[in-house]
């Protein structure tokens, strides 16, 4: 769907540049058909979006189509086109239809990984949202040192992801990490943060929440500032308590921001490759492997590299997220949001 749309726009935008030039010379459009009329009205808008559409359709559109194609073949490292020395070997993989999808959806690996991915996404997004909401509300009050607190709280966002993940690995280190040293100091045995399946799950969620709160907080803080203060004043006149004000003014006022950031952060968390990959590489065993890291593993880390299965998982991820976005939008619509 995505690709189809973007390609049609590219074509239109391409024609349209020429049209724009002829318009500049002042010649009136001969034979105004529907398309021509469209071009002369919309050439400006189309020219402005053309670069994005062009780049996205080449860099995302082609890989997407290729991914869908590969997911219906049995392509792996041994049968794709490749060059060994001076010999160029042609591709010998075959079309297998929906076999990969049937395998993925009936086997336990995909469903098991999907289960943990859902737990991971739901817990990360909900914890991040609640913390971000609480901090945004506190920071929106008059409080001494507010800008200093705000800077400190946004800091995790400003640090490149792999640096912060490295910092956390350093803290989590089982023998010499600070966390276990401190725990040892008060007489508690060291915790195998990244080496025990359950603790590792906890550890990756903690790091992702740490990384995600600043974005939530900043977005919600902006939302809070756009709620007119007259509403609060009116509520105060009517004697509404702080909780009532929060429940009936703040929450509804934040609804437009909340719906957007929840949608975005659900998508981002579902596909959060760097945190899992750099922190645990999906381990111990496959305990923290989410769908994306497992798909990466299929095409880079196992031997022979299994491109078909990797693509199958990638397409399934995309389908799941698109379903989610459509359902999410339907639900919001049915509740009267103009989204």
């Amino acid at each position: 769907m995505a690709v189809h749309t973007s390609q049609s726009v590219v074509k239109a935008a391409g024609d349209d540049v020429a049209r724009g030039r002829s318009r500049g010379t002042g010649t009136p459009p001969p034979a105004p058909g529907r398309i021509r009329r469209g071009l002369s009205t919309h050439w400006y808008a189309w020219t402005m979006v053309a670069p994005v559409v062009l780049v996205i359709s080449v860099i995302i559109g082609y890989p997407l189509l290729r991914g869908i194609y590969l997911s219906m073949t049995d392509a792996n490292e041994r049968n794709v086109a490749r060059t060994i020395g001076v010999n160029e070997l042609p591709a010998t993989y075959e079309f297998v239809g929906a076999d990969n999808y049937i395998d993925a959806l009936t086997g336990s690996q995909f469903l098991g990984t999907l289960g943990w991915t859902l737990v991971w996404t739901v817990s990360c997004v909900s914890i991040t949202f609640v913390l971000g909401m609480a901090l945004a509300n506190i920071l929106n009050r008059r409080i001494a040192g507010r800008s200093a607190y705000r800077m400190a709280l946004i800091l995790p966002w400003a640090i490149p992801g792999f640096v912060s993940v490295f910092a956390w690995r350093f803290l989590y280190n089982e023998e010499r990490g600070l966390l276990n040293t401190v725990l040892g100091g008060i007489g508690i045995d060291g915790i195998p943060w990244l080496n025990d399946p359950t603790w590792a799950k906890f550890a990756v969620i903690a790091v992702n929440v740490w990384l995600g709160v600043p974005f939530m907080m900043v977005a919600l803080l902006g939302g809070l500032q756009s709620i007119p203060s007259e509403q609060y004043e009116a509520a105060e006149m009517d004697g509404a308590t702080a909780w009532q004000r929060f429940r009936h003014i703040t929450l509804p006022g934040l609804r437009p921001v909340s719906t957007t950031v929840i949608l975005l952060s659900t998508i981002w968390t579902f596909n959060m490759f760097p945190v899992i990959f750099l922190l645990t590489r999906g381990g111990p065993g496959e305990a923290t492997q989410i769908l994306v890291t497992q798909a990466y593993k299929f095409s880079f880390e196992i031997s022979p590299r299994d491109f078909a299965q990797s693509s199958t998982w990638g397409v399934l991820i995309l389908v799941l997220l698109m379903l989610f976005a459509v359902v999410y939008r339907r639900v919001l619509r049915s509740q009267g949001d103009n989204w």
Partner: protein
Amino acid sequence: MTTTADTRARQAGAKVRLRGDRSPLASVALHLTLIVTSVIAVFPVLWVLLTSLKPAKYATTTDFFRETTFVNYTNLIRDTEFLTWFANSAIIAGLSTVIGVFVAATTGYAVSRFRFPGKRGLMWTLLITQMFPVAVLIVPIYNIMASLGLLNQPAGLVITYLTISVPFCAWMMKGFFDTIPREIDESGEVDGLTPFGTFWRLILPLAKPGLAVTAFYSFITAWGEVAYASAFLVGDENLTLAGGLQKFVNQYGAQWGPMTAASVLIAIPAALVFLFAQKHLVTGMSAGAVKG
């Protein structure tokens, strides 16, 4: 400030606490919450900074300071191509930021101001590009870049990073432009500006907060990216910081001393961009997210 507010509330004899009024106990609780969360937010980064200033053999001690020295930094710069990597990263992230901001702004403006066929499709496409797993795109994008001869070139990575950052930035800029009154565009037209002139001379200067957020986001995306960088670049002198550091980790194992020093040097430019952008961050994001 709190005291005067309290007095006012007492004088009014209000039973309901007004906004901005609170008991001293509540103030203490708020500050305590903020202090604890700020410490959690800052500590991991601070700890890396402190560790980088200790001699490598003390890297895993719990002291905050121990024989403070810059030896980790001097070793790092002497033993690796750190400065070259740094320059590569600066070029790639700088180009991604400048082009990304420009492209996101034009797209956002078009989507905000004009009704045109394909607009809804475009908005959905921008959202859907966020959904396709990066990890699975690497191989096909690698093939495209190879056939275009852009492997090992900054341009290849810049284009790739644009596909990551521009969709989100365009969404945000659209929301931001929606908050700028259309009357301004109309007045530009009356004064004889072309549509592009209106956009460039009137609207962009008003959209500075949005541009700052977009720039921040594009820069951070490009500066900290690891997966594409390590796949597309080969040869020591072509690596970016992220790619170089990855290599460094594998080579030196758990050498915390040099690793922490490298992390600090990588974090500094990002932190500087952040300082520059942070005062616009809240206004910029809010407009973008509210109307997104």
